Structures are given as structure tokens and as C-alpha cells.
């Protein structure tokens, strides 16, 4: 993707991708070394430097990059998809390339092990589903389940290694003595209304004229 773009700045992110061992300072420096070696092996030379800021999704942390950006023909960002877009918007004349392929919003299971648990759908039903997200963990993202595809051992028809989310929800609600919640019919989610979302907290609406 870099083509003839040279020199290049690999911009590390000290936020979430750093914690996920995917795009922090150490990974940014490793990527820069790999790029140098790759160009060298092909008889070329890539001038590549690294710099890591604390977050790539907030303008307050860009002071140093504002000074440096003009020295480069491209920025390779090791942030999530949001960070890459933030950098691209800040330096619109500069190609900004993603070093990562952002997979999901999840939590740390253990060191180096992350699991998707939230699709940030904006229609949270966790309060009624025992804290288990059916949008993320049900193969059909059903708001009302289970479907007819739950196996006898409580796994999903799609893959025997995947627990059926609604089986798990049933188990959890039964343990909590709140099983009646599973019979409550939730209106179907309006998947067609997928537009870019913005949140402005109430006390700040006047400030931003929203």
C-alpha cells in the first residue's frame, strides 16, 4: 500500500491497541523495523520513523505530531479504525494507512487473549438477558431466542464449539431466579437504520449548539 511513499511515519497509539499488544510503542517500532528490512530485502530503502502518542482519538495528544507530520509522505497508524480516521481527518493531504485490521470491542480474557462481547448496537438488552449479549454472541443476533438450532448440549447449530447465547442466557436467568424475563418479547432491532452515531452529553449540548 505504501508504494513510492517515502519517508513514512509509523504512529503508535498508547491507548487500547497498546493494551491489546497490537499497536503500542513496542509494536510500532517492530513494524518500522520490519518495513525497513522488507524494503532492504527488495533492494530499496525506506526512511521510516516511529512516534507514539497517548491516544489517536483525541486532538489534545497531537501537538508533537502536528510538528512532525509535514516531514513525511505518509503515516501508518497502529490505532483502531477510529484512530486511523481521526489521524486522516487531521492531516487530510497526507495518506494515512491502517496498520491494523480492527476486529471488535471486547474484553481481556487473559494476557494476549481478547474476546468480542459488544457490537455497540445502541439497543442494549443486557439488563434482561443476564448480562449476556445476544447481538454479539448469538450467530443470528436474535433479540428473542433461542431459535430451533440449539443442540442438546447447549451449543449452536452453526458450530459445535460455540455455546448457544440463548442457552447461556436461560441458564444465567434461571440461576438468578429471573427466568420470566426470557419470555418477554423484545421488538426487533431496526438494522436498516445504520447511520453514523454521535453522543453529546446533556450539559454540553448548548456549548456545541446541538
Amino acid at each position, binding site marked *: 500500500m505504501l508504494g513510492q511513499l517515502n519517508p513514512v511515519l509509523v504512529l503508535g497509539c*498508547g491507548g487500547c491497541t*497498546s*493494551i*491489546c*499488544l497490537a499497536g*503500542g*510503542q*513496542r509494536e510500532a517500532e517492530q513494524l518500522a523495523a520490519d518495513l525497513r528490512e522488507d524494503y532492504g530485502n527488495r533492494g530499496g530503502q525506506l526512511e521510516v520513523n516511529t512516534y*507514539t*502518542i*497517548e*491516544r489517536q482519538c*483525541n486532538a*489534545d*495528544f497531537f*501537538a*508533537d505530531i502536528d*510538528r512532525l507530520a509535514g516531514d513525511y509522505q505518509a503515516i501508518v497508524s497502529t490505532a483502531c479504525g477510529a484512530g486511523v480516521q481521526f489521524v486522516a481527518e487531521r492531516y487530510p493531504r497526507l495518506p494515512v494507512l491502517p496498520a491494523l485490521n480492527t476486529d471488535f470491542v471486547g474484553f481481556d480474557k487473559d*494476557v*494476549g487473549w481478547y474476546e468480542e462481547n459488544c457490537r455497540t448496537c445502541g439497543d442494549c438488552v443486557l439488563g434482561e438477558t443476564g448480562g449476556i449479549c445476544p447481538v454479539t454472541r448469538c450467530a443470528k443476533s436474535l433479540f428473542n431466542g433461542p431459535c430451533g438450532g440449539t443442540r442438546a448440549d447447549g451449543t449452536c447449530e452453526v458450530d459445535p464449539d460455540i455455546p448457544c447465547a440463548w442457552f447461556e442466557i436461560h441458564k444465567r436467568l434461571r440461576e438468578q431466579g429471573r427466568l420470566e424475563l426470557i419470555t418477554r418479547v423484545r421488538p426487533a432491532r431496526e438494522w436498516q437504520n445504520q447511520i453514523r452515531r454521535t453522543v453529546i452529553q446533556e450539559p454540553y449540548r448548548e456549548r456545541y449548539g446541538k
Partner: protein
Amino acid sequence: MAAAQQATVDTGKVKDLLAAHRAEMKRYLSHCMHCTLCAESCFLFMARDKDPRYMPSYKVLNSLGVLYRRRGRVERSFLEKIKKIVWRNCVLCRRCYCPVGVDIPRMIALARAVCRSQGVYPDFDEQGHQESWL
């Protein structure tokens, strides 16, 4: 990281970083009135029985403040010490409030940048988890 920990501090690099932000940071450091109002806006301070080590003003004065006072001439052991202050004791949530407009998060971010310039930053691998950064 291991190699970086043994290396000496590149004082020139530290000085350059401090110089690039000197005017703004000197203003902030001199404007702090030690009123402690920032403390109550820090959830870490409140959640840790108001331990003064978690006061935002304490954190900047004992990290960036010392870096400026020593004009960047610091040992690696000092950077390792302030690493705990600017990462473990501050999550950079940007909620700290200062009545005279001192931008505390920017100061913490600069102290982190100085540490990073010398290869001092938290590990989030096995070793980092043992240190309990979060």
C-alpha cells in the same frame, strides 16, 4: 525494553522535547496555586481514600515539574520512577478540573512522551500484568 532499560538517557532528546513545550508548560507549572481543587475531580484520588499521591497536581509536579527543574538532566531510574506516577497513578481520562485553566492531562502526556523517548513505557504482556498497571 530490556536493552532500553540498560541504556543511558539521551539527555539531548529529553531537552528537545521539554524545549518544544517550554513556554506552555512553564506557564502551567507557575500557575498552579496548590488549591487542590483538581484532586476531587480525580476518580483515582477519590477511590483511594484521598491518597495525596493521586492528586493530579502532585502527579505533574513530581514528574514533569522535576524534569523541567532539572532541565532534563535525569537518570533512567528517575524515568522508571515517574513511569509509575504518569501511567499507573493516572489513566489520562482528562476529567481533572483546574480553576485557573492548567491543562493537567497535557502535562502528564508530555511526561509520558519524555519517558517514551527513552524507551520507558508500560508493558501489557505477562510482566506488565504482574505489575498491575490497570
